[in-house]
Structure formats: C-alpha cells, structure tokens
C-alpha cells in the first residue's frame, strides 16, 4: 500500500478527530466552571484553606488557558492541514518562537510555584503560636487515638521515652507513671473522635505506633503523614463550627479505608462540656 497524496477520507477523519478534541475541551471547561464539581469540593473552614483555594484557582485559570489553547490548537492544525494534495511547508522551526515560549512558560510556572510557597510557609515554616491548643494524634492499624496534655499543658513521656535505653517487650506506649507531667494527660483511646475550639489555634502532634498513616481533613485542606519514629506538628485555626470527617491518606494495610473518625469544632462552652464528658469516662 502506497500512500497517495490527498487520501480520500482524510477530511472525515480530520473532522471527527478535531470535533472530538473540541468537545472534550469544551466539556472539561464546562465541568470546571459550573456547579457540579464544586458541590463536591467542601468549603474550607480555615483561612489557610481559603488561601489554598485561591492559589488553586490561579493555577486552574493558567492551566485552563493553556489546556484550551493547546487542545483547540491541535484540533485546528489537524483539520486545517489535513491532506488535500497540498505540498507541506518546509521549515525546521523558528528560534524566536522557541525562546519566547520557553521564557513565557518559565516565568509563568516558576512564578506560580514561588507564589504557592507563601501558604506553605505560613503553615509549615512558622512555629505554632505559644497559646495553641496542643493535641497528640496517634495512628495505628486501623484507628486514631488522641491525647490531651491537660491543664498543665505538658505531655507526659511514654515509658519508652522516659527510659530510652530500655527495651520494652510490653506496652511501651503507656504514659510513664513516674512522670508528673503525665498525671493530668487525657488519653482518648483508639476509635475516638477529638474536638477543638473554634477560632483557637491548634497544633497537632502527629505520630504512629506501627506503619505510616496520614491524617487528612478535607475542609482544612491539610494532611500530614503519621510516621512511626517521628512526631510531626501540623497547625491550623478552624473558623466554622461543625463535625468534619478525618480519613487516613496513606496506605497502611487492609483497613486503610476504615480509619475514619471525626474532628469536632466547638464553641468554648461546648468544648468545655465535651471535655467534662470525656474526663468523666
């Protein structure tokens, strides 16, 4: 089979391909600018979450423009230059254009990337305020537990932390009885929910007892891996009361999808009442 110039049927093929690409592009744009997708995107409940959403939008606009231009550009050249017996233009390229789009994309992408670091820095590169409410979160297969430092604001050491040279064969994750800081610690065992106070800075101290898990709350727009052997801080301030789903976001075994629990965001009064209930148990 020798290809002949101006293959008949190429107009149909060109048209269908171009049309498919156009439909795909328009459909994608439609989905992203109208309601359906946003009904799934839960509203953020912290200022940082809103900033992340704004950065997301900036990125969406830029990538959206590139997406539309590139896909429609492809559809256009496919149709416009379909074989109709013409001779192609002999060209090896255009250096000016190369320099132009190299610089344009470099500035846009790196600019976007640098700008994104502002929100990152606000969460990760600054220590939590000294009056932040500290809560220890411990992941394990397949539940979360929590520990509050109590009125003294200090966490007691676990047995293995109090005696690091000792090798424990049982219960290393029990608060050391001799540690005075631990006397008022409140442990909420595996499968508990936890609570924070609205508009109050919180610092989570995220740990794991076995494999790597990840603490994720959609409405905060934040997640942090729970890595065994490490204690990793995560700070936020929730501004909208409610009950929010916590899920595990790092594959941890067969129960990975069953580690859901809840974060309650409560007014101070409600929180005090909740705490009283928890302590009484």
């Amino acid at each position, binding site marked *: 089979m020798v290809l002949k110039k101006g293959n008949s049927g190429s107009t149909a093929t060109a048209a269908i391909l171009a049309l498919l690409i156009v439909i795909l592009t328009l459909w994608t744009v439609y989905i992203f600018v109208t309601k359906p997708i946003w009904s799934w995107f839960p509203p953020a409940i912290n200022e940082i979450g809103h900033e992340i959403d704004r950065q997301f939008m900036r*990125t969406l606009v830029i990538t959206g423009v590139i997406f539309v231009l590139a896909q429609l550009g492809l559809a256009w050249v496919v149709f416009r230059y379909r074989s109709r017996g013409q001779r192609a233009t002999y060209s090896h390229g255009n250096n000016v254009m190369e320099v132009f789009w190299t610089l344009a994309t470099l500035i846009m992408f790196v600019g976007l990337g640098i700008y994104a670091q502002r929100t990152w820095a606000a969460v990760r590169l600054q220590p939590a305020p000294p009056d932040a409410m500290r809560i220890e979160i411990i992941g394990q297969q397949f539940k979360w537990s929590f520990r509050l430092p109590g009125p003294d604001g200090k966490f007691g050491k676990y047995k293995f932390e109090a005696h690091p040279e000792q090798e424990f064969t049982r219960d290393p994750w029990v608060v050391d009885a001799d540690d005075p800081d631990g006397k008022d610690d409140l442990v909420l065992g595996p499968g508990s929910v936890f609570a924070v106070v609205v508009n109050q800075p919180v610092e989570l101290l995220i740990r794991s007892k076995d494999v790597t898990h990840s603490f994720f709350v959609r409405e905060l727009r934040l997640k942090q891996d729970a890595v065994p052997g490490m204690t990793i801080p995560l700070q936020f301030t929730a501004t909208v009361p409610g009950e929010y789903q916590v899920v595990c976001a790092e594959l941890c075994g067969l129960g990975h999808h069953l580690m859901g629990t809840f974060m309650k965001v409560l007014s101070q009064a409600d929180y005090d009442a909740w705490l009283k209930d928890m302590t009484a148990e």
Partner: protein
Amino acid sequence: MTTHAGAVHAHEAPKGFIRKYIFSLDHKVIGKQYICLALFSAFVGMFLSVLMRLRLADPTIKLPFFPEGILPEQYLALVTMHGTIMVFMVLTTAPQSGFGNYFLPIQIGAADMAFPVLNMLSFWTTFLSMVVLMAAFFVTGGAPLGGWTAYTPLSALGEITGPGQGLGMTLWVIAIAIFCGASLMGAINFIATTLDLRARGLSLMRMPLTVWSWFITAGISLLAFGVLLAAGILLLLDRTAATSFFIPGNLVLTDKVIPHKGGSPILWQHLFWFFGHPEVYIAILPGMGVTSHVLSTFSRKPVFGYRAMVFALSSIAFLGFIVWGHHMFVSGMSPYVGLAFSVLTMTIGVPSAIKTFNWLGTLWGGEIRFTTPMLFALGFVSLFVSGGLSGLFLAQTSIDQYLHDTYFVVAHFHLIMGVAAIFGMFTATYFWFPKMFGRMMSESLGKLHFWLSFVGVYAIFMPMHFIGLAGHPRRYADGSGAAFLASMDPVHMFMSVAAFITIAAQFIFLFNLVWSIWKGKKADINPWQATTLEWSIPSPPPHDNFAGHEPTVYRGPYEFSVPGVADDFILQTTPPDKVVKC
C-alpha cells in the same frame, strides 16, 4: 576492504531453533521478545484492573475465585500488582527495550547492538524477574498489599502487617532487584551502541528523535536503577536479617512489640523516589520520541525545532533527577526541602511545553495523512497536554497538601503513563509493524481501536480528577469508611463501565496484531514513504540488517517536502546525486 564496526563483533546468522528464537543474540529477536513480555504483562495488568474496577463499582460483587467477594486485602494486592506489573513490565520494557532494541541499531546503521550477549542476558534476566514477580500471586498469603511504592515500615515488617506481606512481599523485592540488574545491562548496551556504532555521516544531530529518546532514556536508567537496587537490598535485609534501616523502634502491632530500632521510614521514600521519579521519564521519553518521529512523517514536514527537541529531552532527563521530593511534601521531610523541590518541579513544565508547541509546529503547514500510527501520535499530544497540566497543581506544596494521595494523583499519572505512554507504544507498533513483519496491519481495525481507546481513556480518567478534587483518598477498597464517599459512587460506576469498554477495545488491537503477522497484506519496503534508515532495508530486515555493508548517511532524519525535490521525502541514505529534482 571496508570494515564495518558492527561487523567486527557481529555474529553469524544462527542455526537451530534455540539459537534463533530462544537465546538469540539478534537485537531484532530480543526486541520482539521484550515486546511479547510487555504485551503479556499488559493484559495481565489490565485483567487486574478489571477486577479492581469491578469491586469499586460494586464492593459486594461475587466472582469466580472470589466467592465471598474481593476482600479489602485482595483489592490492595490487586492494586499493588497492577501498578508494579504495568510500571516495570510494560512501561519500562516495551518502549525502550522492545522497540529501542529492534530499531536503535537499524536507525543508526549498525548490524546489531554493541554487546549482543549482554543484550540476550538482559532479556532473560527481565523474564526471570517477571516470573518471580508473578509467583507472588501463588504463594501462601498471596501478593503484597503495600502498593508499587512499598512504603516502609508496612513493607518491612512482614506478615504481621497484613496478608501477602510475608513471602509475597519478599518475592516482590527480589523480582524488582533482578529487574534493576536487567535494566542496567540494557542501559549500558544502548549507550555504547549509540555513541560508538553510528554509521558514516550520522552525527548526533542527524539522529532521529527516536534514537535520541532511547539514548537519553538509557542514561536515566543507568543512573536511577542502581539506587533502587540499593534500596531493595536494604529492605530485604530489614525483612530477613533483622537490620533496622527503615524500621524505627517501639512499634506495636497486634499487641506485639517489634524488636527493631532507629531506622527511618522516610529514608526508603527518598531512595525509592530518587529512582521513582526518573522512572516515569523512562516511561514517557521513548513515547515522545516516536511521537515526534511519526508526526513529522505523516505531516510530510521536518520536526519543528529539532535542536530544541533534543534540548527538551535532555532537560527533562536532567531535571527529573532533582525533583523526587515532590512525592514527599507531607511525608515528614523538612518543609524547607519541600519548598525547594516544589519550585524545581514547576520548571519541568517548561521543556514539556517546548515539546508540545513543537509538535503543534510540526503539524502546522503540513500535509497530514491520518494513518493509524498518526492518529495515535495525535492522541498522544492531546493526552500529554491533559496529563501534564494536572502536574502543575500537584507540584505546588500548598495545593498538594490537599491533593496528595487522592484520586487526583491517580488521574494525573494514569493520563500520562497509563494512557499517553501506552499510545506511544501503539504508535510504535502500528508504524513499525510493516518493517518487522513485512505485512500491514488492518487500517480499519486500527482506526476503530483508536477511536474507542481515545474516547474511552478520557471517559475513564477525566472524571477521576473530580473525585480527587472532592478529597477521595486513593487505595481505598470502598467508600464505607467515610460518609462523603458515598456520593461519588456513581462516578466510580461510570469509570468502571468506561474501563470495561476501553479494555475490551484492546482485544481488537490484539487480534489485529496477531492476525496481521500471518494474514496482513504484504508490505512494501517503505509503505509510509519515511526517511530513516530502517525504511531502506527489506521488510523484515535480514539477520545483519545492512547485508554486511555500512550505510552512509547524507542528511538529517526529517527531510520532507524539500523545495526543488520531486518526491516529498528523501531517505537519509540517498546520495545527493541520486535525489530527483523537479
């Protein structure tokens, strides 16, 4: 008499079935062996994904071999093996070791690869690796469930962390370690061949972009697989020799205290992703090379910006080695380091954009012929744009805090690897089939395969971005653990149906491929009127490709529609005085 470099060490035509088809030293046979291995693995991988999507559509579904339904641990084993088989046995073999082995020597005018024995060993080592990997399905406990990424300590602690994490996981690590050795052997061969066996007149800047992509990909493999091998050995020691490279102390599982201490789980991630990120460029670069090649051929135009294309391939390869931390923003790694990785990752978008614009530039002003390989190459461009752009979200630290480990990531890498790279393989198959077998594949079946696949893959993976944006975590066996997941069930159903249809369409390809080997219409020596060296030799090529003489190359690889020339193409090997003017 002229000596041909390839001829110095080339081997005589083999006799006997074993030497000809099993332990062949002929790069063409070895290339076909790799392609067969990849094809088999692809269908196994697709079958696993059918099972996965069945469960995601209906978690209670009962199936043969799964009378109680697919248990969550079995689902995770399917996820793990699907990823491992597809990434290693399909995406890292066919584009590079398959088509590269077959066509690199021919496109540079050599009689064979630099080291044919090493080549043969690299295939059989890969084969051994595949056998060991597949064996994991059949041992007690079954296949591992930690994902293809095998994060520690889940992958290091053994059966106590879950079914399949015992012997199955050990076999997995061994299989991957063997694969590392095989890949390194291949990389050495590709680099030496490209540097030292080029024919007269074939300077580096006259090499087809396919050769450039195989050459650069071999460079990536060379530097990346050694790191994975080291990681695998350390993991194996943690699992079997009681070391603690990756396992910290005071872990408690099922009330037992694990007797390890001091190791770093994040160390595994660093080692794995130092390999893992370049790995994805190994998967895509050959596809980019063949796309450039085919777009040029069927637009009857030189590649727009050949030098820029070479620069872009090289930049992607280089930058690919300094961005691995973008997989680890929330891993507990230093946030300062994360910031650096984030900005660096955004720069990789630049050479990718250069390539996309140059592909459009190649098409612009062309005379486009819509053959099946061309359709898949065009599809590649569209899919690469879609898949690449979602990377811009994930590269930003702040946004990734939300999107990490959601289906947004799964959508991103499937569009890029699980579709664009696959389209690259289809392009290569349809394009080079006539040369490999002396017959044409059916154009109508090929086009049908294209339309169904192109629509199908978008139907599967575009909606996946949305459930990712909604915060749907990945590697979830079902949505029973969080109320917000229930509303996304209809999307899962849609994606599953789209997947079944798209996968069914691949059997059209398989049928076309096998049928055409025996029954396809006989092909001319150059049915596509292409310019590179493989189209100047018979279909299929003789044992030593160029019948003992060294070809001479007179021009670049994409001289189409040259003004003043009668034909709209000039073979690289046509002497200037033989070019017919008009």
